């Protein structure tokens, strides 16, 4: 059986309202029993779609930020991504959500970190702004990609991980990858306030990145912005094995987290990420 994949991509980098890089890429991959034969052939319709989308995003580029805009039109559909960086923090968003997400980013970036990093072990962590989706992406999604056994979840938490064969460019070998992670909590979930008890909490606001090590089932999360005891912490890392993640509570509807570009085998793909406010603790 022969599978034909076509793609066109336009990406641009804007620094403080000035264009500094612009790339067009297009190509076709024919996958059959002999393997993949790929060339940079052009599909005018896909290129035109990209140009329309990039034009739309240019109008929305914030003038005080580092912004990468990417329009992708392929056999898999059309996608638009805006990565906005301010003061060393960044979000990944779309034209539909960029205004709200940049407002969130500016709010988080307005507060300077102070003091020392704390040891997060044993402290209730409240994952805000949908950031719990990143934890679940690493601990559940990547483990599923590696066909590892699921971890036990509380009965009131449902984590939907959509997997499908995806590829970043026509040069890449398609892999089974996440497309969306959506967590929902039921009515029986302990509310965040009840779950944390009376002590101080560590409130995660933005996550810089994450990693899953399948050999040891270790999850590593680089926290870009978090508050503890009325102060903004410097960036820090949480590292734990999957079986040491204790989910204590959750509340509210799933919140779209602005920022999961997942990299595996050198292929970067955007993964839709949604989670309610969630409380966890690591041993």
């Amino acid at each position: 059986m022969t599978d034909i994949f076509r793609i066109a991509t336009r990406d641009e980098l804007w620094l403080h309202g000035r264009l500094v890089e612009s790339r067009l890429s297009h190509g076709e991959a024919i996958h059959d029993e002999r393997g993949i034969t790929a060339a940079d052939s052009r599909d005018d319709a896909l290129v035109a779609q990209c140009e329309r989308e990039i034009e739309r995003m240019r109008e929305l580029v914030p003038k005080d930020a580092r912004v990468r805009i990417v329009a992708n039109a392929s056999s898999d559909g059309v996608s638009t991504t805006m990565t906005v960086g301010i003061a060393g923090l960044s979000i990944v968003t779309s034209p539909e959500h960029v205004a709200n997400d940049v407002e969130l980013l500016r709010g988080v970036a307005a507060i300077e970190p102070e003091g020392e990093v704390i040891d997060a072990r044993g402290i209730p962590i409240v994952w805000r702004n949908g950031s719990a989706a990143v934890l679940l992406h690493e601990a559940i999604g990547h483990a599923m990609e590696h066909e590892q056994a699921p971890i036990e979840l509380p009965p009131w938490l449902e984590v939907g991980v959509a997997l499908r064969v995806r590829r970043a460019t026509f040069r890449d070998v398609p892999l089974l990858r996440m497309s969306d992670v959506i967590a929902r909590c039921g009515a029986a979930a302990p509310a965040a306030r009840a779950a944390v008890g009376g002590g101080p909490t560590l409130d995660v606001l933005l996550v810089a990145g994450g990693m899953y090590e399948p050999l040891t089932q270790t999850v590593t999360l680089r926290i870009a912005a978090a508050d503890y005891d009325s102060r903004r912490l410097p960036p820090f890392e949480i590292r734990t094995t999957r079986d040491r993640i204790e989910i204590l509570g959750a509340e509210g509807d799933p919140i779209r987290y602005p920022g999961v570009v997942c990299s595996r085998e050198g292929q970067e793909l955007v993964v839709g990420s949604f989670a309610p406010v969630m409380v966890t603790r690591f041993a």
Partner: protein
Amino acid sequence: MKEIYRKRGSVVRWENGTLVRVTESGVAIEEDGVFTCHPERSEGPPALSIAHPAIPLPDGIRIERLIVTHGIAHHEFEDRAWSDETKRFHMSLVKGSIRALIDRAEDVPRIADALQRAEQQERNAPPRLRLSPNVSAALLPALVGLAPPNVELLQAAGGIDGKGNAIVEAGDHWPNWYRPSYRIRPIRMPLNLCLRCDVTGIEPDRPLAVALLAPLDGLTMRVLIDDGRNAYPATVRVTRIDAVASETVWYPYGGGSFGAEMML
């Protein structure tokens, strides 16, 4: 000033059991601080071929990742034109929870043998040890600006850079340009790094770090150590270098790196 670079080429690779053939050509333009690039003219499929890698391994070890690449590229920049041919090998081998990273096919038997004997438990690194060339090559890019005073980190002369200039020997102010793809804006950085030290004698009975178990984190390396009887994972923080052997082997780390047996 306007700079125009063109590249066309073909690459064939085995990636985890899938054969991939890619043909591409494109142009990159830098003008007034703006970098743009796009495909320029498509050609037929590559005429290159590559054999399916067959690599015998000891029992108890599995291949997690295997990528073998062969490529040919033709470049033009201003009035200069040049060609190059590249062959790359990347493999990760796994035993239990240990992953060894390998970037040269010739290193596989030695690393696989040590990995087969490896304990899973991490031990403290011995106070004195040797680094094999594949490990020291990975270290060199991290030593830029941080090399101890008794060694000299240099860019070795040889080859052509991303703007068609000859790569010259240099110790700082890196004069050459790194451009791994026409889609990537070229940057000045050291290419073909090597390390010189007045002391070149290596004590052969010191334990040997035979492989990286993870990418470097600054000057900290998680490595597989073989002391001749036992092999085990350990974390090494490089703070001093006692000797660097004269014989070197090239590895594709950073903009290229000549590894040599090294004594810490």
